[in-house]
């Protein structure tokens, strides 16, 4: 129905929380397939909330959201995993499983898909290598530094070449060099066809990358 070139479309989306706090107001947004888009805005603007809507961690209060050709409001609870498997997410608070090693955390995304062991190993090695954590593979997350944990989260998000990558402040705990490497990684992935939506405060990064950026302020889109 909608043009195949759009991977995300949001029509008049509102999100109001229980306490009547309006986190998102009348969001209209279209992300093209293969695009690299920044989501910028001050603390509390609604960046994380917008991303949460895209993989149905939260539901929109009103409005329609279409991801990869499906109206995600209409997906049944038992089928949400199908949506999520197409989307890689770097969570702002990492969300690493504390009882699994670094390797197992990254591998879990592939195990869920029932991929054979040898392929899982190959892919996980590659992903950890890309973020510079191949030596930390057998450690439990508690023993890692903040930046290392963030890189585990990044490795997990990209390990299966998702159709859509949502990265929420993925360089907040990384030094400039590391941050630059990660941006290169995202760029690579983007060139291989993954659509990337990245929320960040780092205006410097946004400037350097020369990509489209959306400005959120108090739940509303300011620029486009």
């Amino acid at each position, binding site marked *: 129905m909608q043009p195949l070139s759009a991977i995300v479309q949001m029509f008049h989306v509102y999100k109001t929380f229980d306490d009547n706090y309006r986190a998102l107001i009348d969001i209209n947004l279209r992300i093209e397939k293969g695009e690299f888009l920044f989501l910028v805005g001050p603390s509390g603007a609604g960046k994380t909330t917008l991303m949460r809507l895209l*993989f149905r*961690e939260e539901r929109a209060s009103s409005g329609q959201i279409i991801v990869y050709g499906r109206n995600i409001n209409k997906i049944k*609870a*038992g089928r949400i*995993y199908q949506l*999520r*498997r197409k989307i890689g*997410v770097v*969570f702002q608070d990492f*969300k*690493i*499983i*504390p*009882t699994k090693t670094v390797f197992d955390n990254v591998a*879990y*995304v592939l*195990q*869920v*898909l*029932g991929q054979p062991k040898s392929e899982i190993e190959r892919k996980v090695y590659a992903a950890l290598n890309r973020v510079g954590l191949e030596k930390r593979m057998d450690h439990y997350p508690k023993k890692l530094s903040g930046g290392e944990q963030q890189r585990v989260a990044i490795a*997990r998000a990209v390990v299966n070449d998702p159709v859509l990558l949502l990265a929420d402040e993925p360089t907040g705990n990384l030094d400039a060099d590391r941050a630059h490497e990660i941006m290169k990684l995202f760029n690579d992935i983007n060139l291989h066809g993954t659509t990337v939506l990245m929320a960040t405060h780092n205006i410097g990064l946004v400037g350097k990358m020369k990509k489209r950026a959306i400005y959120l302020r108090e739940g509303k889109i300011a620029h486009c």
Partner: protein
Amino acid sequence: MLIARIRQILYFLHQGVKNLSVGGISAIIAVTSITCSLLLICLYFIISSHLTKAFDLEKDIRVVLYLKESVSKNRIEPLQQKLTNYEEILGIKYVSKEKALEKFHHILGEDAIILEGLNNNPLPASFEIELNHEAKEINRLKSVLHQWEVLPEVESVQGGVEWIEKLSGFIIALRISLCFLGGILIIISLFIIASTIHLTIDNRRDEISIMRLVGATDWYIKLPFLFEGVIEGILGGTLAIFLFWVFYEVLRWRITPCLQLIFNFSEINFLTMKQIFIVLLVGGVIGGGGSLLSFFLQSFQHR
């Protein structure tokens, strides 16, 4: 396809065992809760089977047929033959008038002096009849006794009905009480286990919600917990049986002497193989069921 399925199931089993070993204190608590509950069930089994035994006084169910004074000796033999044909009869014994007096003498003991003044033997001849298990069913017993009462040779029939009526009433009451107690114990057990596993899983709620967020299906998350629960249950069962056995061996020598005093059996038997199997099965079922139950609760809490 089949190989993939088997690989998946092996993966779940492996995850289950891994969870168990990572779970640490939570897993230990779950296992010991199940052990406690199953110990109660073992106790129930052993009390139940022995109480039944204690009041199942097979050989005490006797009936006496008193014969009429007028019955001559040569009619005894055919009557005995006739009675033996009843399938309810386990054993039959003729007691002549002389034998009856002798017995009475014996029963009176020191008081037997009163028999010294007797002119003739006032006691009737009788058949002492031992009934088999089937006859204990109260209605059947009544009908058989009635048939015997109307025999021409029989003066009166003594014993049986009231005693059996009382006894079977008591046994029924006892059985009901035991079932009741057992039911309460099982409910308490289930509650304890569901709580423990709920808390254990609640401890991992973040983990579970992350799994959901990275695309795991519900069953993919649930199955390892299910296997974990079943394994914990069976471990708990094994432990319970072992502890109960220790307990049994330690207590047997202390309790036995008292028993003989009160009941008419002198040995406590351990659980039968069937009961052991049931304990293990119940362990596995409540372990797995507890997991599922708490998962169910969880999904309400965190949706």
